[in-house]
Structures are given as structure tokens and as C-alpha cells.
């Protein structure tokens, strides 16, 4: 188990009202609640937008992974604007391009394909977390 300071901060995009944004949040929940609960810490993007000091410090000094629904990459940009360097910037749209059969639909509640896509995203992030924790901290982000 990691100390709270060592945990990797997972920052999903807000994407409220957008299907791919919902996938990013669902994936973040899966990572932080189920797959790697002891190694991660979920951070709401809105805290960075609002300039919350603790949230800013967490991404500035710690390791982070961002998950964005679309290629505007709002979460990744916000983390960088607040002084952080994500170890990985995931775009759900890129993951979907590799899993065309998993077309997400729905907003408040994802369809089955969307839930499965979120799981794929979450598993990729879990792998990244394992790699990051096993080796030296990456400074250059890798895109999904």
C-alpha cells in the first residue's frame, strides 16, 4: 500500500453531458475504486479549474495520469497549466479507435459497449500505473 503522498493522481475530464467524457470518468472510478485503489487517488478536474491549492500542489509535486474523452485534452492541459507533468495522457477517443466494436452511448448511464470501453481504458491505465511504480518516474507523457 502506498502512502497518500506516493499515490498516482488520476484526473478524468469533466465532459459533463458527453458520452466520451462519461467513459473517462467511469474508467477513472474503475481504476481508483477497483483496479488499483491502494496506488491511486482520484482528483476532480473542477478543483484544478477553481484553483484549489491542495489539488494544484498534488499534481505539481506528484505523479498524475489524465483521462480525456476528446482530443481537446482539457484534463491534460489543466494539469500542465497547474505545473504538473502527467506520466500518461489518455484520450478515450484514441482507445476507441483501437476497439471500434465498443461504441459508447448514453450520458447518465453508459450502454454496455461504453462500460466495456471504460474497462479497457481502466485496464490500460492500471498497466501504466504498474509500470510507473516499478520504474523511474517518467517525465515525458505517452499518449494513448
Amino acid at each position, binding site marked *: 500500500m502506498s502512502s497518500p503522498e506516493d499515490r498516482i493522481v488520476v484526473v478524468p475530464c469533466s465532459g459533463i453531458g*458527453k*458520452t*466520451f467524457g462519461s467513459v473517462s470518468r467511469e474508467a477513472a472510478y474503475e481504476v481508483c475504486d477497483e483496479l488499483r485503489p491502494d496506488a491511486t487517488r482520484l482528483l476532480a478536474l473542477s478543483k484544478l479549474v477553481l484553483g484549489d491549492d491542495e489539488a494544484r500542489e498534488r499534481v505539481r509535486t506528484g505523479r498524475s495520469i489524465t483521462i480525456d474523452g*476528446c*482530443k481537446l485534452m482539457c484534463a491534460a492541459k489543466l494539469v500542465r497549466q497547474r505545473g504538473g507533468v502527467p506520466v500518461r495522457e489518455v484520450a478515450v*477517443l484514441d482507445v*476507441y*479507435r483501437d476497439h*471500434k466494436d465498443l461504441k459508447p452511448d448514453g450520458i447518465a448511464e453508459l450502454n454496455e459497449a461504453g462500460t466495456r470501453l471504460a474497462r479497457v481504458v481502466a485496464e490500460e491505465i492500471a498497466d501504466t500505473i504498474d509500470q510507473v511504480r516499478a520504474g523511474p518516474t517518467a517525465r515525458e507523457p505517452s499518449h494513448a
Partner: protein
Amino acid sequence: MPEYLETTLDKFTFRVATDRRYSSDGIWLLDLGGGRLRAGVTDFVQQHSGDVAFATVRAAGTTIAAGDEFADLETVKVNLGLPLPIAGTIVEINPALEASPEVVNQDPYGDGWLAVVQAPGWEEARDGLLDPRAYLSVMQSQVAQELNQP
């Protein structure tokens, strides 16, 4: 760099490049000379359709009749078949579309072009297409219709 007409409707701003012709479906054609036309979608089409997940253009060498589809866009919201406004043969496909189809969203009038078409009838067909001001007007009507939908 093209110049643009611009209109803001509700919270959305749409641009129309002034150096090309349009169909009412939101396909633009830029004259490259010698009957070669670069084709793409308008800012309105890309904003209205959402993030592009896949962009597929018919193979180079394919001859397209006027009004037939020359490309498909699959976005996060819709699947769009794109009709070519005039007859022509696909001679080039934007190589960026395969790895980065989001370029259609990011730069619809520039790097987000879809195909180059050889169109022998361009000189005759050009006047049947919309100039930028005419397309702007058509697009404004389409946006207003969308906004007025319940």
C-alpha cells in the same frame, strides 16, 4: 491562410473560408488549378457532428458521380456520408486522416482536408455551387433550424 466570414449564433461561432465554393451539405471545394479540387467539410459540419473518430475516403482512382458519397465520417455522435457536389475522380487522400482524424475538427479548412479530386467539369459546375456568402446564409438557416427544434 484563407480569410474567413464569421457568424456567432447562440453560443457557437462558425467560420466560412472565403477562398472556395460550397454545397449546401457543408462540403467545400478549393480550386487547385488544372481541374484539381481539394475537398473537405465546413466548420459548421465539424462542430455540429462532434469529434471525428474515423474518417474514410473512397480509394484513390475511384470515380464519383455528382451527389454520390466520396467519404464517411464517424463521429462520437453520428455517422455521416459526404456527397461530392460534382463528378470527379479521387486522386489523393489526406494521409493524416488515418492516424489523426481529429485534424478534421482542429483545422477543417486547412490540414483537415479529406481528398483531392480531379473534376473535368469544374469550370461549368463552379457557378452552380455556393459562394462563401451564400453558404454562410444557408448555414445560418440550418443553425437557426437546429436551435428552434424543441
